[in-house]
């Protein structure tokens, strides 16, 4: 509320933001290394190509977050008189789209596999003079690629809630999508070992539904936020209780007769205007100043 200002986060949230930024850098480095590694090791196999594209898509949310955070709290300029907060909503849209595309890609891919009855073939390799089925080696590799995502994703959720940052939240979902697909691939490999050729594709199809659902709900929320929907909590469509509390606080002021509040989200922060009917118009400017301060201290 009020004019956008540079250090707009309280000190504890700034610490949270720094943590979030560190986590996202970690994610970028980890995802990029996974992309390079997969490209080097398993570039030719079709199944691994899917995994590679997923990792590439997984890079979008953290990069979007880091870019958005860089511009987010810049002071307004003549060209951008409302400041740069909305870049977070744009980043959220990008991340949500990446998540959605990944889900749909995976779904289509696995349905094609099931329909064309593509029998996955996995060779063996020679290790220490022993012939070992490559499926065995894929399991630890997949587990290794999934584990960091589990922890990264879980660490991001509380930070996203505290910061009210939906990009971070979408990225946490992307991490979840990553370890879910790796898990599905593991189930698939074991299934193939049992002679169930469809196990891989079926597991991927089930997981892709969950990812598409996350992607779609994020996509929808990103769009309605850009359409100036009233602020909502980051993971659901419930209106943020802050709005009602703010309205109640304003109404409780002894000089206020009635109030109409319009709020919208611009990324991490809320903007809006309160239209008040004053009952006592003396010293109105001071009173408004005091009310603004009180509003900002809310919570």
């Amino acid at each position, binding site marked *: 509320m009020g004019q956008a200002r540079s250090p707009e986060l309280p000190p504890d949230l700034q610490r949270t933001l720094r943590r979030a930024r560190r986590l996202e850098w970690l994610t970028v480095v980890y995802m990029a290394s996974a992309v390079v590694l997969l490209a080097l090791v398993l570039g030719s196999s079709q199944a691994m190509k899917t995994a590679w594209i997923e990792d590439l898509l997984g890079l979008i949310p953290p990069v979007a977050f880091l870019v958005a955070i860089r511009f987010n709290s810049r002071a307004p300029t003549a060209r951008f008189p409302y400041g740069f907060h909305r870049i977070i909503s744009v980043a959220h849209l990008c991340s949500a789209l990446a998540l959605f595309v990944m889900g749909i890609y995976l779904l289509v891919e696995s349905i094609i596999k099931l329909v064309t009855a593509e*029998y996955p*073939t996995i060779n063996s*390799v020679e290790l220490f003079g022993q012939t070992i089925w490559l*499926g065995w080696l894929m399991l630890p590799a997949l587990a290794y690629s999934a584990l960091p995502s589990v922890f990264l994703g879980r660490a991001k959720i509380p930070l996203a809630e505290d910061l009210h940052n939906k990009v971070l939240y979408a990225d946490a979902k992307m991490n979840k999508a990553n370890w879910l697909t790796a898990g599905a691939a593991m189930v698939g490999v074991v299934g193939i*070992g049992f002679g169930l*050729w469809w196990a891989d594709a079926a597991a991927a199809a089930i997981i892709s539904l969950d990812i598409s659902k996350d992607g779609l709900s994020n996509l929808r929320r990103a769009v309605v936020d850009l359409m100036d929907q009233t602020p909502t909590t980051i993971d659901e469509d419930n209106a943020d209780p802050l709005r009602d509390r703010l309205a109640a606080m304003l109404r409780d002021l002894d000089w206020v007769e009635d109030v109409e509040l319009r709020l919208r989200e611009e990324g991490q922060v809320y903007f809006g205007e309160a239209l008040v009917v004053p009952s006592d118009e003396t010293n109105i400017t001071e009173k408004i100043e005091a009310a603004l301060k009180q509003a900002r201290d809310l919570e």
Partner: protein
Amino acid sequence: MDGYAFARWRDLCLLLALIALVSASCTFPRDPRGTLEGVQNATMRVGIVDNDPWTRMEDGRASGIEVELLKDFARELGADMTFVPGTTPELLEAAKEAEVDVIVGGFTSTSPGVSEGKEAGVTGTYLTTRFVVGVPPDRSAIDDPSGRKIAVERIDTTAAMLKEEGAVPVPVGDLSTADMPIAAYEWQLKEWGFEPTSIELPEEQHVMAVPLGENGWLVELERFLRSQRAEAKALLREETS
């Protein structure tokens, strides 16, 4: 998220239990269509594409390096052999319908149709070979193939590789008496008195093909071929000397 966390640990435990179970059983991986069990103590159906010296069909009798190797494999499995001669596309189609168990035809890791692994599963390399260009006795050595006529047995992969190097492949009846540089295995050059040059053609990695997805069968064949590397090399020398 907490619900997921619970599900994750439960799933992980299930998965570990599954893996332990699997490790305990001996036939792993298994075939979706049971090729390995179908061959053991029964019949191995071999699709064969004529490609001397690897595979030959003469008067209904199969021979060649890869046929010899598979004979040993069949013996190990206690299986008889039947041969299905055909072209690569025909046999790939047959493999899809599970009408042949293995296809041989001197395939390499670059053979079109086979090497992509889309129509059939491809074994790992069981033998790596390389042609060397040699000059006839009393001829000056060459070190640049471009523009030169180089003799080959017939127009095939070797000829294509020569062409890629800029040379002009010329098919001749008998390489050992050719009056120009030839592309041949090192031991052939030695035997025929040709002087090897520094021009070596790219390595060829020899493979066989099996029906898609028959992982147990594929792994068993790969294990056998790995144990026969020296044997394969000896067979090649024998065939080409």
